């Protein structure tokens, strides 16, 4: 017990004495949170839109106004004639063009069906799709307000948990999960390998400290730092980015503790494999990159090829990612998340025990 405490204290003295380490632990994640929070944004808003109105009628202006209300489209008069519409797309002047033909209002007034042209820049298929969706909604609204007829089917949509569709609500919980993974895997593996490199590990191994005490003393500090780290990230997320935290914080921290068994175990495992800090860094990087890419952090797992989907089942972060998002965004409770929780417990126990068993006090 005394030796565990001695190790924990020593580790903290070392971390706080090393300014580079401190920056790595506390500043880097904040930058990550800000950059990812702002940059990774799938929200489609303020789309520059060229309006070719050849009708110039009351009705055509009304349709144009329907597009400019709201924050999705920014409707402008085009700089170039219709013949050169593509030049505008190539030059990124606009991403969408709305073409209203001359006979637009006359056809409607005579009871005929009219058509408008909607051009979209399809370079980014995702945002093109979203723009088409918005436009469809606007046209539908226009139809409903101009036809006395009842529309046969009306869709009443209800978007749950993130009705405004803000990417950042989805990203920040993901960042919290990846931060905890990266920091605990990296720091644990580096801390042991650094001692091996410096020769201090030999000195500790020749002491009667038990392997269990050594492992605990070497992992507890990074578990604490991991918790400090996600607390900072959560505080920043809720205060600065104003992200709602719907579920139970206690549940999130409790499950993070279980998840840490896995990441600390992986760190420990790397440190038994590696002789130098470079090797440990490489392995740590490899693991976290794999874990993040197949966790559903950015790309939904359902979009992945079936075989990759099976591989993701072996990724502990996948479960924790779902847990963090579930708790923060949907207010999920332990019963809602039980398959993930069980998976994490199994991962944690297997990885941490096998890593501890492989770690010996022999050179």
């Amino acid at each position: 017990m005394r030796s565990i405490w001695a190790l924990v204290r020593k580790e903290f003295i070392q971390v706080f004495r090393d300014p580079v380490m401190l920056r790595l632990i506390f500043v880097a994640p904040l930058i990550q949170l800000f950059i990812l929070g702002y940059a990774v944004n799938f929200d489609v808003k303020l789309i520059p839109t060229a309006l070719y109105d050849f009708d110039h009628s009351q009705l055509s202006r009304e349709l144009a106004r329907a597009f400019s209300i709201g924050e999705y489209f920014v409707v402008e008069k085009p700089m170039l004639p219709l013949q050169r519409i593509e030049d505008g797309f190539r030059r990124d002047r606009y991403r969408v063009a709305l073409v209203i033909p001359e006979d637009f209002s006359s056809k409607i007034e005579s009871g005929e069906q009219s058509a408008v042209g909607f051009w979209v820049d399809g370079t980014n298929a995702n945002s093109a799709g979203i723009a088409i969706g918005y436009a469809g909604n606007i046209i539908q609204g226009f139809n409903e307000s101009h036809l006395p007829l009842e529309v046969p089917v009306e869709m009443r949509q209800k978007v749950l948990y993130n009705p405004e569709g803000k990417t950042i609500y989805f990203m920040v919980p993901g960042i919290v999960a990846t931060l905890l993974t990266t920091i605990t895997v990296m720091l644990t593996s580096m801390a042991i390998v650094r001692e091996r490199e410096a020769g201090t590990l030999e000195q500790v191994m020749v002491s009667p400290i038990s392997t269990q005490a050594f492992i605990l003393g070497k992992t507890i500090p990074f578990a604490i730092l991991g918790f400090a780290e996600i607390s900072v990230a959560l505080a920043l997320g809720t205060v600065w980015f104003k992200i709602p935290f719907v579920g139970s914080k206690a549940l999130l921290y409790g499950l993070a503790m279980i998840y840490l068994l896995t990441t600390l175990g992986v760190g420990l495992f790397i440190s038994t494999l590696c002789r130098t800090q470079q090797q440990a860094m490489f392995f740590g990087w490899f693991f976290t990159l794999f874990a993040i890419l197949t966790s559903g952090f950015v790309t939904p797992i359902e979009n992945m090829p079936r075989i990759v989907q099976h591989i993701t089942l072996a990724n502990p972060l996948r479960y924790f990612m779902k847990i963090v998002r579930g708790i923060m965004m949907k207010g999920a409770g332990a019963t809602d998340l039980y398959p993930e929780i069980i998976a994490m417990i199994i991962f944690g126990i297997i990885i941490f025990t096998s890593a501890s068993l492989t770690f010996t006090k022999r050179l």
Partner: protein
Amino acid sequence: MPKAIETHNLTRAFGDFIAVNDVNLTVDYSEIFGFIGPNGAGKTTLIRMLCGLLTPTAGSGKVNGFDITSQPEKIKRTIGYMSQRFSLYRDLTGRQNLVFYGSVYGLSSKELRARIDEVTSELDLGGFIDRLTGSLPIGWRQRLALAAAILHRPQIVFLDEPTAGVDPAYRRTFWELLYELADKGTTLLVTTHYMDEAEFCKRICIMHQGRTIAMGPPRELIEKHGETDLEATFIKLIATSNRTG
């Protein structure tokens, strides 16, 4: 009479390379026992086996009455070890290092304070114990490393080239400290390159290519081989050993 250290045909191989080959030796309590030999002679491997850091490939050994293969953790309680490489934390002060190593050996904070005061005066660490270890000159670091190795009052202390890279005047001071320790009843096992240091030992063991090629008090070895000093004796022994293969 119980021996501090006994080994029987102790052998350690790394793959095809036999680092320690069939070593038999006994070391009495409170003697200073020296291992000398060229680089790669197997001194460090032998010490690491005796400290329970490496398992022997063949043979057996006892340290303080405990078996090196089956009871390494019991051995670790009763020995001190100063490795060849400086192994204190450079980013901690001397005192923080001592507190850390003392706690790892299970000293209570009260014992620890008392012991740190004791070694500080014995080894004269007062002037630099609160400075960052990494910033100290090598001689002072070695004294701190010795302090860390004896903090828990071990009966046997292993010192692997404790004076490598230390200037000659300072080596003398260091050996005076070792003598004081031996006078108080501590058994010391020292490896060294320096022949003058070897002569300070009560008995020495000359190692070459994993084997012990001579053992005994330095004076006796010199006389037995008809030489005048240890260096000449050493060179002669190594040459003979190379010839006979």
